[in-house]
């Protein structure tokens, strides 16, 4: 509330709103029911502890109980939690969230129990994916972060395990992982005249989608750089990834009301950038034996980042991206003319190149940034 008050005061000072409007906004916000985030946090920890306990009990040594009794007990508690949620559904307070979260998470214990009784085998991702299906309504109905975040965590873990199981075809597995992450992000972005995911679920989709995209992109870069020292131009895998990206961008494009211009540019820029990082390794040393072509690919990716940063006014990221580009251009000089640079004349020329690069970066980065920012 203090932050809001400060902001409103600033807006009044700038003439954006009148003092009366400031008062009206403040009184509206103060009259809105306040939620104790500490209480929500502590309750979340409590729920997690209980569920972990239930899972431990299921996994522990209780072979003396007949399988049917175990199953009956599990279903009894699953139903009790469901009914408890329905009873508290319309009421204020935290119990609704506690019962809903327990209801969703207990399915995981149930899957573990059935797997244990019938000695079922799986790589783990199937069980998590099945749980995601069963717990989706609970994540959907949640009015706190616990269930949506846990659900997305489960989905991410499921996809990650699937990818690690298919490690023999890492390129294909990574392409699937990136595509799923793009589609999850698309669900977070999409809105259409009131039809959109519930806010907590939507925010979780955005967070986990972008996080997974970043992790997979950087992971793929590091892994492929080490493994192949080359670009990955597997057409099918790239097409899959770019289709995923197109879905996410389409979600932003068809959203109504439309996103503000800057937000839209940032979304498209970020999604494209992530696909670029995935498609061409971040630390691209060369394409085959072509060092200059490798440098061009590298500069292209970082230019995307510089442009996206300039469009959205992220000055530090813009400065970093342009600095990296300048360094990379110097590096390619040494890569191409490495042996010549060791001579006396070569060293003088190298020094000129470095100084020229630094000067050009210092002089033109701000101008270019302002120009790009102005275009946005």
């Amino acid at each position, binding site marked *: 509330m203090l932050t809001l008050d400060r902001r409103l005061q600033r807006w009044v000072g700038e003439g954006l709103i009148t003092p009366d409007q400031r008062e009206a906004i403040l009184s509206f916000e103060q009259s809105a029911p306040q939620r104790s985030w500490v209480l929500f946090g502590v309750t979340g920890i409590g729920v997690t502890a209980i569920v972990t306990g239930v899972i431990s009990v299921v*996994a*522990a*040594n*209780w*072979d003396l109980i007949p399988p049917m009794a175990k*199953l009956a007990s599990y*279903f009894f508690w*699953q*139903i009790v939690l*469901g*009914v408890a*949620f*329905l009873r508290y*559904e*319309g009421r204020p307070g935290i119990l609704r969230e506690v019962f809903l979260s327990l*209801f969703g998470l207990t*399915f995981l214990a*149930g*899957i573990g129990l*059935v797997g*244990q*009784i*019938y*000695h*079922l*085998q799986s790589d783990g991702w199937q069980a998590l994916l*099945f749980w995601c*299906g*069963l*717990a*989706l*309504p*609970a994540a*959907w*109905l949640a009015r706190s972060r616990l269930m949506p975040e846990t659900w997305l965590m489960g989905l991410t873990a499921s996809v990650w395990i699937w990818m690690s199981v298919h490690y023999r075809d890492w390129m294909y597995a990574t392409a699937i992982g990136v595509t799923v992450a793009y589609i999850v992000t698309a669900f977070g972005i999409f809105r259409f005249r009131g039809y959109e995911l519930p806010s907590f679920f939507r925010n979780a989709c955005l967070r986990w989608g972008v996080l997974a995209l970043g992790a997979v992109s950087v992971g793929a870069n590091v892994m492929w750089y080490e493994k192949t020292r080359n670009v990955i131009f597997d057409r099918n895998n790239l097409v899959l990834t770019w289709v995923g990206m197109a879905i996410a961008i389409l979600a932003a494009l068809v959203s109504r009301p439309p996103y503000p211009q800057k937000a839209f540019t940032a979304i498209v820029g970020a999604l494209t950038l992530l696909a670029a990082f995935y498609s061409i390794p971040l630390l691209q040393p060369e394409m085959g034996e072509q060092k200059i072509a490798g440098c061009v690919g590298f500069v292209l990716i970082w230019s995307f980042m510089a442009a996206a940063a300039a469009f959205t006014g992220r000055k530090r990221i813009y400065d970093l991206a342009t600095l990296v580009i300048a360094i990379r251009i110097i590096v390619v000089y040494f890569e191409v003319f490495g042996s010549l640079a060791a001579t006396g004349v070569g060293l003088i020329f190298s020094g000129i190149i470095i100084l020229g690069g630094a000067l050009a970066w210092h002089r033109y980065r701000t101008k270019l940034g302002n120009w790009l920012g102005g275009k946005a």
Partner: protein
Amino acid sequence: MKLGKVLAIVVPILIMAGWAGKHILHTSLGAKVRLAVKGYDPRDLLAGHYLRYAVEYGANGNCGSREGEACLCLSTPEGGGVSTATGLGNCRDRDSACSLWLRGRCERGNFVAGIERFYMSEGFAPSVKVIPPNADIEVSLDGRGSGVVTEFFVEGKPLREYVLEQQK
């Protein structure tokens, strides 16, 4: 109370009940076979309280160079006992005369059917550090060739009974 919210609670429970029910029916109505097993490695502690083993299907159960989905025809000796494979081939082209068959996959030369581990209590661990000799499993087979392990035997006795004898 909105119908949507009731369905959000009821439908997942019904799906879960259907899944559990499928396994209950599978184990109670399926055809039972016994298959010999052997240990290929000390029990993998990271896998939890599971006994992990390789199933011995006999000479006719070898995958050779085959990879991917495969079906194994099983034969049980008259009077009962451990079953062995009479042949292995494509699931689509399997012999209609084969009444007991197991669906699985050939992976790196081995036939795996999702029946290669058995949950056991933590208290059994000191007595079953490795797969004991003369061990076999009971598997329930449904009409689609899917197998579920129902019991682990050592020297003809259920695992629990064997362990209790060892601990005396």
